[in-house]
C-alpha cells in the first residue's frame, strides 16, 4: 500500500504550475503587450503635455527639453489663445453634440417603435436602408450636405441649392453648428435606433396587456409600463451617442473648417498640422476626459438599472404588434421618405457630383466620365487622372483592403483568445484585468487614440523600432481599436461552447493548443467570422483613427478622399467616398448573408 503524507502544497511548486499552464503564459504575454499598446500610450501622451519638447525654444526661452512644465496646460486653459483654442471649440463640441444626440434619439426612438412594435408595412426592406447612414463613412454625409448647401462666400463652385434657387444659402445653413448637428444626427440616428429597437424587442406584450386588463388606458400603459422599461436603454443610447459625436473628426472638419468653426476633435488636427503638438495632445486628453465622463455616467445611472429591468424569459414570450389603423400608410410613406432622404439621397448626390465636369454647373452637357476613367489632363483638377487610372488611388485601394483584411483577422483571433481566457478563467484576477485592458480603446475618441500613437512610435524604444510612417503601425492601431468589439463577439461565441466539449477533448489527451485549434476555433467560427466582417468594414471606413499617422506611402482611400476634399477636388473626393461607401455596403450585405446562414443552421439543429 502507498503511504499517505499530510503536508501542505508549497508556494514555489504552485508557482511552477501557474507558469507552465499555456493559457496562463498566453495571458501574461497578452497583458504585457496590451499594457504597452493601450495604457502606456496614454501615459506617454500625458508626459508629452507636461514636459518641454525639443523645438520649444522658439516658444519660450525657459524651455529645457525633457524638463517638467505646466506651460501647455496653462496656455490651453488660460492663455491668450485659450478662447479660440479650447473654450470656443469646447462649446461648439457640446452644442453640436447635444443637439445631434437629441435629434438622433428622437428619430431613432420613433423609428424603432414603428419598426418593432407597430404593424407598419415594409419593415423588412426599410430596416437596412435606415441603417445605411451609419454604415457609410460620416464623411460621405458631410460631403453630400456640402454638395447641396455649399456657400459661395467661402469660395469655390455653387451647390445645388444655389443652382436651383439662384441665390446662395445663408451661411448658417452651409457651415457651422446647424449643418454639423444635422449631419451628425443623420449619421448617428441608426445607432440610437438599434439600441432602442433592441430594448423594445424585449418587451413582452403580456406586460402591457396585463396593464390594460387592470384598467389602465393605452396612454397610461405607454407612460407607466412601456416607457419605464425602455427608459434605461434610451438613456444609455443618449449618453453613448453623445460620447460618439464628440469624437467625430472628418464631419465637423468638412462642414466647419471653411468657416473657422472648430470642435475639440478638429482642433487636435489643426494644432498638429500647425506643429503645436503638445497643445494638440492637451486637447486630446480633454477629449478623452469627456468620453470617460460620458461612459462613466452611462454605467453609473444606467448599468445597474438595465440589468434590473432585463426581461429575458424563454417561456410564453409574446410580442404583439400594435395596429396603426388609418395611420398605417401615411406613417409608412413618411418613414420611407425619411429613409430615402437620409439613406439613399446622399449617395446619389455624391454619385452625380462625381460625374460633373465643372462642379456646381448643372446641365447634361456638363456630365463626364473623366473623374472615373479619364487620363490625366492638366486642364482638369490639376491634372489628376480619373479614379480608375490614378496610381495613388489604386495604391490606396490596395492599402485599404490589405489594412482592413489583415487587421480584421488579427483582431478576431486575438479577440477570441482574450474572450476564451475571460470566459474560462473567470475567477483569475489577471484574466479580468486582460478583459478590462482590451476594453479601454473603446473609451478613447479615435482621433485622440491616433495622437497617442503619434507620440509612442515616433522614436525607437528598446527593441521596438520607430514605426511612424509604416503600414505595421496602421495595422497595430486598427487591431487595438477593434479589440473591444472583437472580444465581445468572442465572448458570445465562447460562452455558447459548452465546457464539456472541451473537457471531452482534454480527457482524450489533447493539449490546450490542439483543443483551441480543433474545438474552440471551428465552433466559434461563424460568430467570429461575422465579427471579422464587422471589423473589416469598420477599419475600411476609418479616418480619424489613422489620419494623423498616414504618410504618402501608406495612404488609404479615406485619407486620400479627405486630402482631395481639403484641396477642393470635390469630384474626386466624392468618387472615393462613394467607393468606400459601396465597399462597406457590400461588406454589410455579406454580413447579413452570413447571419442568415447561421440562423438557418441553428434552426436545423433545433428541429
Amino acid at each position, binding site marked *: 500500500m502507498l503511504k499517505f503524507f499530510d503536508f501542505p502544497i508549497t508556494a514555489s511548486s504552485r508557482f511552477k504550475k501557474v507558469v507552465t499552464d499555456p493559457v496562463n503564459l498566453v495571458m501574461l504575454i497578452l497583458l504585457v503587450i496590451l499594457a504597452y499598446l493601450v495604457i502606456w500610450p496614454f501615459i506617454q501622451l500625458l508626459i508629452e503635455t507636461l514636459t518641454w519638447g525639443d523645438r520649444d525654444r522658439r516658444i519660450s526661452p525657459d524651455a529645457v527639453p525633457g524638463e517638467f512644465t505646466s506651460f501647455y496646460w496653462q496656455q490651453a486653459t488660460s492663455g491668450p489663445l485659450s478662447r479660440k483654442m479650447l473654450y470656443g471649440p469646447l462649446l461648439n463640441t457640446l452644442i453640436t453634440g447635444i443637439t445631434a444626440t437629441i435629434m438622433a434619439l428622437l428619430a431613432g426612438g420613433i423609428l424603432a417603435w414603428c419598426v418593432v412594435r407597430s404593424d407598419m408595412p415594409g419593415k423588412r426592406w426599410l430596416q437596412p436602408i435606415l441603417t445605411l447612414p451609419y454604415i457609410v463613412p460620416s464623411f460621405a454625409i458631410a460631403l453630400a450636405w456640402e454638395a447641396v448647401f455649399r456657400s459661395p462666400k467661402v469660395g469655390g463652385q455653387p451647390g445645388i441649392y444655389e443652382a436651383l434657387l439662384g441665390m446662395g444659402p445663408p451661411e448658417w445653413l452651409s457651415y457651422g453648428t446647424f449643418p454639423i448637428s444635422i449631419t451628425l444626427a443623420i449619421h448617428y440616428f441608426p445607432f440610437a435606433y438599434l439600441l432602442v429597437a433592441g430594448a423594445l424587442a424585449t418587451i413582452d406584450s403580456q406586460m402591457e396587456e396585463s396593464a390594460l386588463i387592470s384598467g389602465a388606458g393605452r396612454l397610461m400603459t405607454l407612460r407607466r409600463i412601456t416607457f419605464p422599461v425602455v427608459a434605461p436603454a434610451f438613456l444609455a443610447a443618449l449618453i453613448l451617442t453623445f460620447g460618439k459625436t464628440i469624437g467625430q473628426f472628418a464631419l465637423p472638419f468638412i462642414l466647419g473648417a471653411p468657416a473657422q468653426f472648430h470642435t475639440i476633435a478638429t482642433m487636435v488636427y489643426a494644432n498638429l498640422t500647425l506643429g503645436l503638438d503638445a497643445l494638440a495632445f492637451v486637447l486630446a486628453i480633454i477629449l478623452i476626459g469627456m468620453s470617460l465622463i460620458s461612459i462613466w455616467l452611462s454605467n453609473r445611472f444606467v448599468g445597474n438599472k438595465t440589468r434590473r429591468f432585463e426581461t429575458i424569459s424563454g417561456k410564453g414570450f409574446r410580442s404583439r404588434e400594435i395596429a396603426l389603423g388609418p395611420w398605417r400608410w401615411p406613417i409608412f410613406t413618411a418613414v420611407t421618405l425619411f429613409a430615402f432622404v437620409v439613406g439613399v439621397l446622399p449617395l446619389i448626390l455624391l454619385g452625380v457630383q462625381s460625374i460633373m465636369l465643372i462642379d456646381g454647373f448643372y446641365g447634361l452637357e456638363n456630365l463626364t466620365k473623366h473623374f472615373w476613367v479619364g487620363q490625366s489632363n492638366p486642364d482638369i483638377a490639376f491634372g489628376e487622372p480619373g479614379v480608375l487610372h490614378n496610381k495613388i488611388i489604386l495604391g490606396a485601394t490596395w492599402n485599404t483592403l490589405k489594412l482592413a483584411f489583415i487587421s480584421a483577422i488579427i483582431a478576431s483571433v486575438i479577440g477570441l483568445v482574450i474572450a476564451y481566457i475571460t470566459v474560462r478563467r473567470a475567477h483569475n484576477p489577471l484574466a479580468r484585468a486582460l478583459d478590462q485592458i482590451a476594453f479601454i480603446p473603446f473609451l478613447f475618441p479615435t482621433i485622440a487614440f491616433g495622437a497617442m500613437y503619434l507620440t509612442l512610435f515616433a522614436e525607437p524604444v528598446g527593441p521596438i523600432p520607430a514605426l511612424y510612417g509604416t503600414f505595421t503601425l496602421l495595422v497595430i492601431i486598427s487591431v487595438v481599436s477593434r479589440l473591444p468589439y472583437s472580444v465581445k463577439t468572442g465572448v458570445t461565441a465562447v460562452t455558447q461552447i459548452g465546457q464539456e466539449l472541451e473537457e*471531452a477533448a*482534454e480527457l482524450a489527451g489533447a493539449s490546450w493548443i490542439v483543443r483551441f485549434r480543433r474545438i474552440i476555433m471551428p465552433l466559434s467560427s461563424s460568430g467570429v467570422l461575422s465579427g471579422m466582417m464587422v471589423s473589416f468594414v469598420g477599419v475600411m471606413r476609418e479616418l480619424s483613427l489613422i489620419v494623423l499617422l498616414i504618410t504618402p506611402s501608406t495612404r488609404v482611400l479615406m485619407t486620400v478622399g479627405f486630402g482631395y476634399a481639403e484641396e477642393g477636388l470635390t469630384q474626386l473626393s466624392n468618387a472615393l467616398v462613394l467607393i468606400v461607401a459601396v465597399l462597406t455596403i457590400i461588406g454589410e450585405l455579406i454580413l447579413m448573408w452570413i447571419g442568415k446562414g447561421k440562423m438557418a443552421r441553428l434552426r436545423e439543429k433545433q428541429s
Partner: protein
Amino acid sequence: MSKIYVRNLTKTYSGIKALNNVSLEIESGEFLVLLGPSGCGKTTLLRCLAGLETPDEGEIIMGENVVFSSALNIMVPPGKRNLGMVFQSYALWPHMTVRDNVKFGLDVLKTPIPLANKRLDEVLSDVGLGPLGERYPSELSGGQQQRVALARLLATQPPIFLMDEPLSNLDARLRMDMRVELKRFQSDAKATTVYVTHDQTEAMTMSTRVVVMKDGEIQQISPPDQLYRQPANTFVADFVGMPRINLIDLTAKDNLIHSYANDDLHLDIGWAPGCSHITVGARPEDISIINGTAAGKEYFKITAVLPNGPETIVQLTRGKTTLITRVGHDSKFVEGQTVDISFNVKALNIYATKTGSLITRDSVKDLNAFSG
C-alpha cells in the same frame, strides 16, 4: 490492474465543502455507482477522478500511479490518466462527423491510420452505428448520440470508464435498453467503472456496489441488495426505495426492553437495541394488512389505494402515524376500510433516533461482550 484508491479527498467551493474527507477503494473491474441527491458531491468526486477538478486535499491512486496527491504535489492532467468518460450532455463535437468524434482520441494518441480505421469500424459496428459514421451529431436521435459518446469512450480502450448520468437524457424505454448495453460493454471491457446517477433504479440494477453520498460525505458503501435491505442510516433508508420506507419513531415502553410504542402503535422487536428512542425502518412490503378487525389490536384506516400494475400501494393512517404498504395487485382494499396490520419483525431495521444510525443485533452483542 486498475484498482482506484481515493483517500481523504476534500474539495471546497467558496466555503462549501463539496467533498469532505472522502475515502474509497474501487476494485478492478468493478461497476461502482455514486448515488445521491443533487449537490451531494457525486459529480465533483467523478470530476476529481477524471482530473477535471483539482481537489484541495487528499490523494487519488489509479493502478500503480498516483494521479493526484496534495502532499506530494502531484496532479496528473486528465489526458494522461488513461480513462474514458461519458458526459451527461454527451459533449459530442457538433462540427465533427460521428467518425471524427470517435477518431479524435486515436488521433491524439497518434495511432497509425490503418490501425485507427480498423478500430473505428470495430467500435462503430459494436455500438450499432456502422452506417452512420458520416453523419453529424445534430442529425442523430438522442439514443444514437448516446451511442456515439459510448463509442468515443470505447475507441481508445481505457481501463477506467467514468460516466456522468449518461442515460438521464433518454426516454424511459430507451433508458432500460441502454442500461443492459452499457453493462455488457463494461463487462466485456473488464473496465473499472464509476457511474454517477441520481436514479436509484439505475444504481440498483447496474452496480456491483453503490456509494450513497450526502453533503460531500459518504453515507454507505455496499452492494445494492444490502443497500436496500440494510440501509446504514435513516438518510439512506429514506433515499433508497420506491415507495419510500416507513420511518416510525418509537419510545421504549415501561421496563420491557423489547417493547416500543408511540401514541398509535405498539411493536415488540424481539431483541434489545439498548436505546430508549428508536426509529424503526419498515419497507412497504414488510407491513402486511390483515383483513378483518378481529385478530389484532392495531386498527388502521385505509386512506388511499394506488394501483400500480403488478402491485398496489396502500396508505394507512391512525392518529398521527401514516404508513405505506405494498400489496398484490389482486387485493381488493377500498378507501375508508378499517384493517389490522402486522410487521415482518425480522426484516425491520432499527435506528437510534438521536444519531439516525443503524443498530444491529450483532453490534449490540459486540458492545455487550466488550463491556461485559
